[in-house]
């Protein structure tokens, strides 16, 4: 029998046994130990050059098969052996164990085949790079300053983000209510909130009303207060909420005198 197959065509002794079982149309559920042992040894002998590290696994299987075959030739003892040094090993059990091992391995080999097909299909599919979504983000995460005092620019950005967030959370009142809320009044409200709280308030907490025009008016009020130095804003860390504090000019702020009450 001439085998042109190399040993590295097989994944190991189990793979080789499966190959022989298929080739010689052997019933895997009723493996003829003598025949498979001969075929297996034949194959091993055909190997011109067995790499020693690969060969050991194949040789171990050869030894197992030979042991099994020879035990099958021996008469079965009438009583189970009580000799501890030479316990009787039922060759039928060994044969069944081998069959079980082969069936198990064959299943995973088949599963590997399915995965290989999946892999192959997958490798035929290509996709573009993700688009740069920063133009849609309305804020450039890469340029937010790491620490320190927030600028008006940062506030604008934070505001836009807030608007988008609120927009996602609940449908906004899209109808524009014309000046239901004067900016001056809202400036007073913010100052009052800060004075009552006696500690810095978060940017988010000032905008507690989910209405677009209300948000815009509050924001404009805040910008005006910043300009007047009545409040100051700071951001301790990248992406942190902006904190609003009473500013140096807070005492000069006159609630009754507001130029925006139109």
């Amino acid at each position: 029998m001439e085998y042109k197959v190399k040993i590295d065509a097989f994944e190991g002794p189990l793979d080789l046994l499966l190959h022989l079982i298929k080739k010689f149309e052997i019933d895997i559920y009723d493996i003829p130990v003598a025949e498979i042992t001969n075929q297996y040894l034949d194959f091993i002998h055909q190997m011109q050059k067995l790499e020693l590290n690969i060969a050991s696994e194949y040789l171990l299987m050869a030894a197992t098969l030979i042991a099994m075959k020879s035990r099958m030739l021996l008469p079965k003892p009438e009583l189970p052996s009580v000799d501890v040094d030479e316990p009787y090993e039922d060759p039928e059990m060994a044969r069944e164990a081998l069959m079980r091992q082969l069936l198990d391995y064959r299943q995973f080999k088949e599963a590997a085949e399915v995965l290989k097909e999946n892999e192959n299909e997958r490798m035929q599919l290509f996709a573009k790079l993700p688009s740069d979504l920063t133009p849609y983000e309305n804020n450039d995460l890469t340029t937010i300053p790491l620490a320190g005092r927030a600028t008006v620019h940062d506030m604008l950005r934070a505001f836009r983000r807030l608007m988008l967030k609120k927009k996602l959370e609940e449908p906004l009142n899209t109808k524009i209510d014309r000046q239901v809320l004067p900016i001056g009044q809202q400036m007073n409200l913010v100052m009052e909130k800060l004075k009552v709280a006696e500690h810095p308030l978060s940017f988010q907490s000032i905008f507690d009303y989910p209405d677009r025009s209300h948000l815009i008016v509050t924001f404009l009020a805040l910008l005006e207060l910043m300009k007047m130095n009545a409040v100051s804003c700071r951001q301790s860390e990248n992406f942190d909420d902006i904190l609003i504090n009473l500013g140096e000019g807070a005492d000069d702020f006159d609630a009754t005198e507001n130029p925006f009450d139109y």
Partner: protein
Amino acid sequence: MTLTPLKIHSIIEGLLYLTGEEGLLVEQINKVLPECTAQEIINHVEQMKKDYQENEASGLMIADQPNGYRLTTKPFMADYAEKFAVIPKTAPLSQAALETIAIIAYKQPVSRIDIEEIRGVKSERALQTLVVKGLIKEVGRAEGSGRAILYGVTPIFLDYFGLHDLSELPPLAEMVKHQNEQLDAYDLFYDHYKETIKNL
């Protein structure tokens, strides 16, 4: 205003385009289209998949990925795409690695020794390759003196083989699941096992 199915398709297509190889999670689509349920979105995408497949004038298709989808070119495009030489070529997994990952996928968490018992050969190199590729990962340690590393598959595994989740793996026969149980149990399962094996 309610969106028409056509409009929904166009929005999903647009999002799939924007996200490209990163892909799009059903959940993300849902956030953009809160008026649809997750199941409705899945149904829409499945319809779109069919539409792409049947549309001969389209070079695109929708591929599955964990919890979502990805717009890709159709397989026939591979030849043309490669002419652009921008496509990074990745080597397919070796037979040893495929067998090893199949065992891990079905039997996880599983140790190197377990794998080697099933395969009948040393599997250290295959395991190493799979870990480096991110397809498997240590998921714990076995009880007992050895405290052997136990392996499991990662989301990258699903992505690599184009699966939404592990339930999409073809079922294995009953016996394998119980393989580690007592030999008595083995006898019990044997008849059933034999039948299932035949049906594979």
